C-alpha cells in the first residue's frame, strides 16, 4: 500500500507543521502533511492565543521578532481570518509587580530594542473597565498581540491546500523506512509515503516518533488547562494578562484564560485524552480577581491540551545528524505565537539549508549531553506538578 509521496513530508498538522507546509507550498515545494487525527487537535487550537516578544528567553528572541513582523500580514497572505489583534498589556496587581515590570521594560527594551512602554493605573482602567481596581499599572508592548488559535490553524491548512499541498488526515505514522543515513519513506497505517526530506512537527508525540527514526529527542509532555466565560462587553482590543493568568478577550467577547499548575504526563503515539481537572475552580477565582466586574459572568467551557517541553523549555528547529534528511521542529509549547516565523524558517532551511534568522540557540546539538533519565532528574515524571 502506498500513498502519493512528496519532496517534503511533514509529520503533524499542528500549527508548526501547517505553517511550514504553507510556506513550502507557496514557495513551490511539493509537500504532504500526515496527521494521525484532525488538524490542530491538540495545543495548536487550544492555547491562549498569545503573540509575544519573549524577551525573557533570549535564544528565541530572533525567531519571535521575525514572528512579530509577520503577524500583521498573515490574514491577507493566507486569505483567511486569524483574528490577529495587535497590542498586549501585562497588568501589575501590586507595587512590587509594577517595580519589576518597569525594570524589565528598561532591561528588555535596551537589550533587544523593544518598544515597551508603561501604562499608569488610570490608563489601564480606562482601556479595560472590568479590571481590578487595585491595579498599579501595566507593561505595554505594542508589537505583541493575540489571535484565534482555532481559526489560525485552519487558515494555515486551507492556505496550504490552496497552494497545491496535500493533507492526509486520520493517517498515523507507524515508523520510518531508512536507507543508510536517510529516511526514504514515512510509514503510516494507510501506507507508505515516500519523501526526500521529513520534518517531524509532532508536538507531544515528537519524542515517540523520533525514536522510531532512531533519534533521541528529549521532550516531556504536560497538560495545560484554560477556562472560557460567556461574552462580556468588548474592552481594549489587545491582549490583557495578569494575576497569574495568560489569555485574552476574544473578538466575540469571551474571556479565555489559563495558567496555574501544569501536570507532566506521558502520551502514546495517538491523540491523547485531554481531561480538565478541578483546577478550573482556581482559574475561575484568579479570573474574577483580575476582572471583578465580570464576577457574575458564567464560565461556559474549559479546555485542556497536551504540550511538550524540551529540557530548557525552548524550541528545537534543526536537522538531525542522523538521519540527516530529518528535521525536528518542536516549538516547546511556544508554537502558536511563533508559528509564522517557525514555518518560514523551516521552509528556508529545507529549501536552502540556511535561514536569515539567528537560530543558533535552538539547535538539536545543545542537548547532546542529555541522558535518557533526564525527566526523572528534573522531577518531570508523569503525575508531578509544577516541577
Amino acid at each position, binding site marked *: 500500500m502506498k500513498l502519493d509521496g512528496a519532496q517534503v513530508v511533514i509529520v503533524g498538522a499542528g500549527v508548526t507543521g501547517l505553517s511550514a507546509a504553507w510556506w513550502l507550498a507557496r514557495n513551490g515545494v511539493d509537500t504532504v502533511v500526515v496527521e494521525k487525527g484532525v488538524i490542530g487537535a491538540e495545543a495548536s487550537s487550544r492555547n491562549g492565543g498569545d503573540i509575544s516578544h519573549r524577551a525573557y528567553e533570549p535564544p528565541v528572541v530572533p525567531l519571535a521578532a521575525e514572528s512579530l513582523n509577520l503577524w500583521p500580514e498573515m490574514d491577507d497572505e493566507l486569505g483567511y481570518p486569524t*483574528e490577529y489583534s495587535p497590542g498586549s498589556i501585562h497588568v501589575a496587581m501590586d507595587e512590587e509587580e509594577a517595580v519589576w515590570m518597569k525594570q524589565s521594560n528598561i532591561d528588555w527594551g535596551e537589550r533587544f530594542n523593544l518598544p515597551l512602554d508603561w501604562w499608569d493605573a488610570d490608563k489601564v482602567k480606562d482601556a479595560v473597565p472590568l479590571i481590578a481596581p487595585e491595579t498599579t499599572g501595566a507593561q505595554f508592548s505594542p508589537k505583541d498581540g493575540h489571535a484565534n488559535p*482555532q481559526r489560525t490553524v485552519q487558515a494555515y491548512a486551507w492556505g496550504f491546500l490552496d497552494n497545491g499541498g496535500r493533507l492526509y*488526515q486520520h493517517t498515523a505514522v507507524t515508523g520510518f523506512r531508512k536507507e543508510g543515513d536517510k529516511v526514504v519513506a514515512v510509514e503510516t497505517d494507510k501506507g507508505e509515503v515516500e519523501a526526500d526530506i521529513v520534518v517531524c512537527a509532532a508536538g507531544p508525540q515528537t519524542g515517540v516518533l523520533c525514536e522510531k527514526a532512531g533519534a533521541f529527542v528529549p521532550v516531556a*509532555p504536560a497538560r495545560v488547562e484554560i477556562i472560557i466565560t460567556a461574552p462580556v462587553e468588548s474592552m481594549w482590543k489587545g491582549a490583557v494578562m495578569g494575576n497569574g493568568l495568560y489569555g485574552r478577550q476574544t473578538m466575540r467577547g469571551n474571556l479565555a484564560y489559563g495558567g496555574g*499548575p501544569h501536570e507532566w504526563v506521558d502520551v502514546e503515539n495517538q491523540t491523547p485524552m485531554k*481531561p480538565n481537572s*478541578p483546577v478550573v475552580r*482556581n482559574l475561575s477565582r484568579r479570573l474574577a480577581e483580575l476582572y471583578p466586574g465580570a464576577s457574575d459572568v458564567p464560565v461556559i467551557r474549559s479546555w485542556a491540551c*497536551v504540550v511538550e517541553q524540551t529540557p530548557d523549555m525552548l524550541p528545537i528547529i534543526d536537522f538531525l545528524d542522523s538521519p540527516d534528511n530529518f528535521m525536528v521542529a518542536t516549538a516547546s509549547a511556544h508554537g502558536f505565537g511563533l508559528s509564522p516565523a517557525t514555518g518560514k524558517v523551516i521552509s528556508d532551511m529545507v529549501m536552502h539549508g540556511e535561514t536569515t534568522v539567528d537560530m543558533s540557540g535552538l539547535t538539536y546539538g545543545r542537548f547532546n549531553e542529555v541522558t535518557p533519565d533526564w525527566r526523572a532528574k528534573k522531577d518531570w515524571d508523569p503525575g508531578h506538578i509544577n516541577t
Partner: protein
Amino acid sequence: MEHIQLAVVGAGVAGTAAAIEAAKAGVNVVLIDENPLDMYMMGLDVPLFFGQRLMPTVQDKGAMMGRVVSANPDLAEAEEAGVDIRLGTYVWGAFRNMETSRVLDGPQLGLADENQSWTVKYDHLIVAAGGRDLGMGFAGWNFAGAMGANAAYSLMSRYQAFTGRSMVVLGSGNLGLHTAKLARERGVEVKAIVEVDGAVRGDAAVAAELEAAGVPIHTSHVIKEAAGSTDEVESVTVVAIDGDNNAVVGSEIEYEADTVCLAVGLVPTVELLNLLDCDVRFDHHRGGYAPVVDEWMRTSVENTYVCGDAAGYHDGMAANPEIARQQGRLAGVAAAEALGAIDSAAAHERRSELTLATASANGNEVDGVWKKWLAALMNVGGLDVYVCQCEEVTRGELLDVQPPRYLEWESDEMRARDLGTLAQDGPVNPDQVKRLTRAGMGHCQGRRCREQVAMLLADESDTPLTEVPIMSYRPPVRPLPLRIMWAHDETQQVRDDWVVWFKHSRDYMREMQEAD
C-alpha cells in the same frame, strides 16, 4: 474533602429508585439533584429548554424546594431508607485519573449551589441525569414561548410555575401526547398537536382522549413559523407537507398561542459520562448519543452506572415510568454488589425479581422521526433559520462554514470554502465546524443545537449520522458564574505555588541577570 461511598446524580424516578435500592442494602448513599433550579440558570435554558415561560415565583427557593419534594413521592421513602438527599445542588464536573491526568487521589465530583462550588470524592457513581429536550429550529424558535417538552413538564408539574396559557405541541409521540394531556390538566389550552408523520405515533388511547376533548392533531404537518410583535410567541402557523416533506401551498393554519412546545424527542444527558470517558455511542433507537450499558446498568467505566432516560431514551419511556424505576433498582443492586454490601447470590436473586418492563418502543426514532422533522423544517423554513440561538448562526452559515458576521471577513478564498470542501479534507467533525462557525459555542453549551448541527453536517456531507463524532462536553457542564466557580477553599500553598506558565518570566530574568 467529603468522601461519598455512592453518589447518585439525579433524583427523578430512576435515581431515587437506585438510591433506595442501594441504601436498603446498607450502602451510604448521597442523592444529588439540581432542582429547584436557580432562575438565572433557567433563564439561560439550562439544563432544559425553558423558553422564558417561568413565573417569578421560581425565585422563592423555599417554596420551590417544597414543590420539588412533593412532586416526587418516592423521596420520602428514600429519606426513610437513610439516603442523604441534597436538592438544589448542581453537579458541574466529574474528574478521574486517566492516561494524561494522574494527580487526583480518587474520582471527584464538582458540586455547586447558588452561592459557591466545591468538590467531593466518591467511590461509585450512578448517573440518573435524565433527558434533555431535542432542539429543532423553525422561524421564531428563538422567541420567548418556544420551549421543550421536558422543560414544560418540569414547569407545569414540578415547579407549578408555568406562565403559558395556550400551546401548540410539536410531536405526537408519547412525549407530545403526555405533554398535551398534562397541559390540559393544568388549565392550559392546547390549540393543536402537529406531527410530520402520516399518523399519530404515540398511545392511540391518549390521542383519542385529546381529540375527543377538541384538540386537533394535524398529521403530515409541520410548523412554519412562530410569530409575535415583541420577540414573544403570539401565534403559530402550521402547514401541510407532501410526500417529499415540502409545504403544500395554501394549506397554512394559524393558531393564536403564547407557547410552542418541541416534543419531537429527548436526548440522554451524557455530559458527566462523557467527562469520565465512559463509552458513549450513537444509537438510533436510544435518542442519539447514549452510553454503552450492560443488562445490569453498568457503563464501560468500572465504578460508574447509569439509569433512566440518561441510559438511553425511547418514546416508550415517556408513557411508562416503570422502565426507569426498574433500571434504577438494577443500578442500585450493581453498585451495592460492587461495594460489597450484598453478595453475588443476593444480587442475583434481587435481579431475578426485576424484569424490565418491555417498552413499546416505536423503533428507530432518529431515522424515522428526527430526520423527517428536520427535512420538513428545512424545506419549509429554509437556510436563514438559526440553528444556534446563542451565537445566532443560521443553517446556511453553518453549511457554508463561514466565519461569524462580526468578523466582517471577505475573501475569495473564504467564499470558495464550504462544508463540501471541508469534507474532502477529511471526515466532518462537529467540534471543528463549531470552532469555525461558532454554532454550539454559546451560554447554553450547545444544548439546543447539538443534534441539529450533527444531522445537518451528516446530511450535507453524506456521512452516516452514527459516524459524526459527539461534540465534546467540557466542565463546567452547567454555566456557573465566576463568583460561584471561585475556589473559596484555595489553600495558601496553591497560591504560593501558582505559576503563569511553566517557568515565570521573572525566573528567566533572574537567570539572565546572574549570567550577566
